[in-house]
Structures are given as structure tokens and as C-alpha cells.
């Protein structure tokens, strides 16, 4: 090992930056060409009346006016807010608790981990169907509980416009918490054992050690998890299609579904692009200031 990279014994600024820059070329290209370029392209075409094919026939803000007049879009936004809020909180809490339990040097860790993670491996097109069955009042959980003698039991979230989004939440957590647990577990495994020892010596109770010492140390992993969950929430689509197709009526529609449906089913690219631009704008407004503070400010390793 000592014979390697003699040149960088006392690395000067240029060499050090060179390697890092080479390593970052794919990122820079992706960011500029695909994300900036592609997004600019989309935004430009959202001001056109492109239907099946992108065409530069500008119509001003027409697509946006129509978007905000559509009852379906408004409901989609509201649903996303509710779904996003609960999904974020429950995923984080459940994921962390499970990871903490898994970190107790338990037996069969691998088996438990795979059980919690397997839903993530399965296509939602079909597992959505299974959840649709489970939550169906005629032959799912409700009928089982009723057949056990609890006649008045009622549980049909997918068929009640007011609570349908929670029915989708149940399946979303089923699919997603396993991954959150794994992320958290990876974070916990990255924490120095000495910390635990010290806490034990000081007689700090375990829950306090988690809340006051461990969680703050897992900041990086938690932020990663947050971004993964949040981007998943914004893009949520398959889940809704497989379980309710946006129903009953339009009660469980979500923005991403609006975008896809209008791009490909309605063949109205302009409308789909306008909707996706609004989604992206919202995300950017929330993320940019936060990202700037998080990544831009002088953090510990400058």
C-alpha cells in the first residue's frame, strides 16, 4: 500500500481537485444535460398545445389555466399533502423502531430483515390487487372479522371517498418501510460501539441514548431516508393505479397520475408537462433553500 500514489503524498490543490472532478463528471453531465436540459425542455413545451408529439405551437398560459380549473388536479394536490404527511412520519418512525429492534443482536436477523423487505421486491401491479382484495369489504379483512362474530365491524377504506387515501397509505407503508428499516439499520451499524459503552457507563437509559445521542449522529442517513421517502411520495403512481385507479371517482387521484394520464392516455403532452412543471416548481421551492443550507454551507469536511 505504501508504494501507491507517491505523487499525492503532499497533494496540492490542483491534483486533489482533479481526481474528485474526474469522479464527478458523470454527475455533472447528468445534472446539466438530463435534469437541467430535460426540465427546461419540458417547461418550454408546457407552454405549447403539444398533443401526441411535442410541437412548438405556443399557447401561453392556457395549459396552466386549464390545470388549475380541473377539479381532479385540486383533489390530487390535497391527497398528496395528506398522503405525504402521514407517509413521511409513519415511515420514519416505524422504520427507525424496527431498525432499533433489529439491532438488538437478535437471532434470525436475516430472516426478519428479508420478511420486512420482500414487499419492496414485488411489482405493485399485482400486490396492489392483493391489497385491494384484503381491504375489500366483501371478501377481505372486514368479512373475516365479521365472520368471527363481530357483526358491526366496518373496514372498507378503499370504497369510502373520505378515507380512501389512508387505505393506500396502509399498502404504501407495507411496501416501503422495509427499505427505511434497512437504511436506518445501516446507519446504526455505522455508529461506533464506544458511544454505546460510554452511555452505558454513564447510566443513560437506552431510549435516551437513542433520542439524544444516536439519532443526531445518524443525521446523514436520516436525511438520505427523508429524500428517498419524499421523492417516492411525490412520484407515487403505481400504488394508486393498482389499488383504486384513483377512485372511488377521483377521490384518490395523485399529481403524478395526472401527469401520466394526460401525457399518455389523453395524449395531451402540454397539459401533462404543465402539471409536471407545477410539481417540480413546488419541490424546488421546498428543497432549494434546504439543500443550500445542507450541502452548500461550510460543513465539517470542507
Amino acid at each position, binding site marked *: 500500500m505504501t508504494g501507491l*500514489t507517491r505523487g499525492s503524498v503532499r497533494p496540492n490543490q490542483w491534483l486533489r481537485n482533479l481526481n474528485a472532478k474526474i469522479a464527478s463528471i458523470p454527475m455533472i453531465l447528468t445534472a446539466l444535460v*438530463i435534469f437541467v436540459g430535460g426540465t427546461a425542455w419540458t417547461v418550454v413545451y408546457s407552454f405549447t398545445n403539444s398533443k401526441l408529439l411535442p410541437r412548438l405551437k405556443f399557447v401561453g398560459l392556457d395549459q396552466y389555466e386549464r390545470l388549475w380549473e380541473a377539479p381532479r388536479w385540486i383533489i390530487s394536490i390535497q391527497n398528496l399533502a395528506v398522503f405525504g404527511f402521514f407517509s413521511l412520519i409513519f415511515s420514519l418512525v416505524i422504520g427507525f423502531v424496527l431498525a432499533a429492534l433489529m439491532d438488538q443482536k437478535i437471532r434470525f436477523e436475516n430472516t426478519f430483515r428479508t420478511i420486512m423487505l420482500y414487499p419492496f421486491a414485488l411489482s405493485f401491479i399485482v400486490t396492489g390487487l392483493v391489497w385491494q382484495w384484503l381491504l375489500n369489504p366483501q371478501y377481505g379483512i372486514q368479512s373475516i372479522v365479521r365472520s368471527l362474530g363481530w357483526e358491526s365491524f366496518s373496514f372498507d377504506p378503499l370504497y369510502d371517498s373520505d378515507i380512501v387515501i389512508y387505505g393506500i397509505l396502509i399498502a404504501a407503508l407495507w411496501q416501503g418501510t422495509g427499505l427505511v428499516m434497512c437504511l436506518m439499520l445501516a446507519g446504526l451499524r455505522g455508529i461506533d460501539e464506544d458511544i454505546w459503552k460510554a452511555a452505558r457507563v454513564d447510566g443513560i437509559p437506552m431510549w435516551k441514548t437513542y433520542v439524544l445521542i444516536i439519532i443526531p449522529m445518524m443525521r446523514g442517513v436520516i436525511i438520505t431516508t427523508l429524500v428517498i421517502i419524499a421523492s417516492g411520495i411525490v412520484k407515487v403512481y403505481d400504488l394508486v393505479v393498482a389499488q383504486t385507479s384513483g377512485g372511488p371517482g377521483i377521490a384518490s387521484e395523485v399529481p403524478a397520475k395526472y401527469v*401520466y394520464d394526460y401525457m399518455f392516455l389523453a395524449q395531451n403532452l402540454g397539459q401533462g408537462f404543465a402539471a409536471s412543471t407545477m410539481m417540480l416548481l413546488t419541490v424546488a421551492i421546498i428543497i432549494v433553500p434546504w439543500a443550500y443550507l445542507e450541502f452548500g454551507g461550510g460543513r465539517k469536511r470542507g
Partner: protein
Amino acid sequence: MDNLASKSALKRHEAEDTRIKAGPRGSKPRSALSRRNIIVYGTLILVAVYYLLPLYVMIVTSLKGMPEIRVGNIFAPPLEITFEPWVKAWAEACTGLNCDGLSRGFWNSVRITVPSVLISIAVASVNGYALANWRFKGADLFFTILIIGAFIPYQVMIYPIVIVLREMGVYGTLTGLVIVHTIFGMPILTLLFRNYFAGLPEELFKAARVDGAGFWTIYLKIMLPMSLPIFVVAMILQVTGIWNDFLFGVVFTRPEYYPMTVQLNNIVNSVQGVKEYNVNMAATILTGLVPLTVYFVSGRLFVRGIAAGAVKG
């Protein structure tokens, strides 16, 4: 190199040893039926039931014949077990004219997944390492753009990417598809690695620098072995995402490269005609087997804590 870093690593390793010997992170050694154990295992088993219930329904359904499914009790075990749906899903279900089930696309999926997973993880981990430990001016801007990119619905990007790939001359090739998977895996993976590397004990990195190790040496000899759990997470993400990807696989390649999910989609997503739920369930489980195997096998790497890996470097 060998001095400081490995010393601290060694210390850590000892800690790891005592941790394993000492048992749980709590204080006292436990008996098999301690209150703690009951709470821990009780909760885990309860949670496992919630996770397994849909799988139970899927397996039971996949073992029934269609007449039995029509009767309607989804929880009832099959009266007469049949493996027909499984055989059909794997080898007989028709995709248009080709009646060879999921098997048709299996090797294509492997050919797509292996290079895409390896390249995307390699690119993103090096990139995340550069961002965490070797920051340069301007990097944060690109990184912020990348993170916002994680929120863009894929489908919106289809047409611009078709244009880019067409101009690069790789539209319809396997290379093009690997590039697309690398691009869309990049935001989350880079973030994952960047934050993980940034959270590692700084002394290790500094010690290596003092010992004269450079960019690549530190990455390969120190960072890599210390980050096995996070590599497993990255692998879980990518194997799942790429193996289950359907849209990119068909939009950016031609039929000779179509992955297994095309057949899966054709089996489960028929618009008109009879839906064979048992075959659907069998096909879904079959398709999921590869990621599941990866989870189970690679999951063992989770057991290694941070210190156990470092001593290997």
C-alpha cells in the same frame, strides 16, 4: 498508512468483539424469556405477520384453480393444490404469439441488471466519496440539481431522453439502457454514499491522508470495506429498481433485449379477456425471486459493523 488508521481500526475491532460477546446493547445478559425478549420478538413477529399476510394470500391464490378463485374466499387454503399456474407463468403464458412465459426474458433481465447495477453503484459511490471527502467548488450546485432530479417523475423525461440517446447514437441498444439506469439511479445513490461517507469517523480518513494515501487508494482500501451495509442498501435499491423496471426496458431498447417484466406486464396487465389471478400471483412471485435472493444473500454483509470492515483495509 498502516499506523494510525489501523490502530484506531483495531481498537474498534476489539470493541466489536466485546459487543458481540456482550450480547445486546442493553445492560444485562438476558434469559430466553426475559421481558425484553418478549417485547422485542413479540413486536417483530407481529410485524412479520403484517408483512406476510399479503404474501400468504398470493401464494394461496397461486396454488388454486380459477373456478376455486371465482368462489371468492381469498384466505381459504386451496382445496386442491395445483402447480399449473406456476408452470404457466414461467413457461407457457403467452406474450402475444410467444408462449414461453417469463422464461423468455429472464436472461435479458440478467444482462440488463448486472451491468446497470454495477456501473451505477460504482459511479455513484465514487461520486459520493468525492463529494463527502474531496469537495471542490461548484460541486454543491450540481449536487443540489441532482437531488431535485430525484423528484422528477420518470415518464416526463422519456421524450427528452429519446432525443439525447438518438443523438448519441445509442438509442435501442443495451448501452443506452445502462446509461439511462445509471442516470436515474444517480441522485439517490450519490446522496446515500455522500451522507454515509460524511458520517464516518474522520480520523480514519485523516490518518490515511497522513500516511500518504491518495484519492483512489483511500476509496478502495478504507472507505469501501467500511461501508458494506450501505453498499448492501444501494444494491437493494438498484437491483430492485432495475430488475423490476419495465418502462425503460421497453422504451429504450428493442424487442431482442426486452426484460422479463415485459412478459410479467403482459401476463398481468391484459386489458381485455379473462384475468387469471393465480397465474398473475405466481408470475409476480417468480419475478420477485431474484431481488429476494439478492436481499437474503447480501443481507449477511449487514452483520459486519463499521469496525469489523476497517481492519480488513
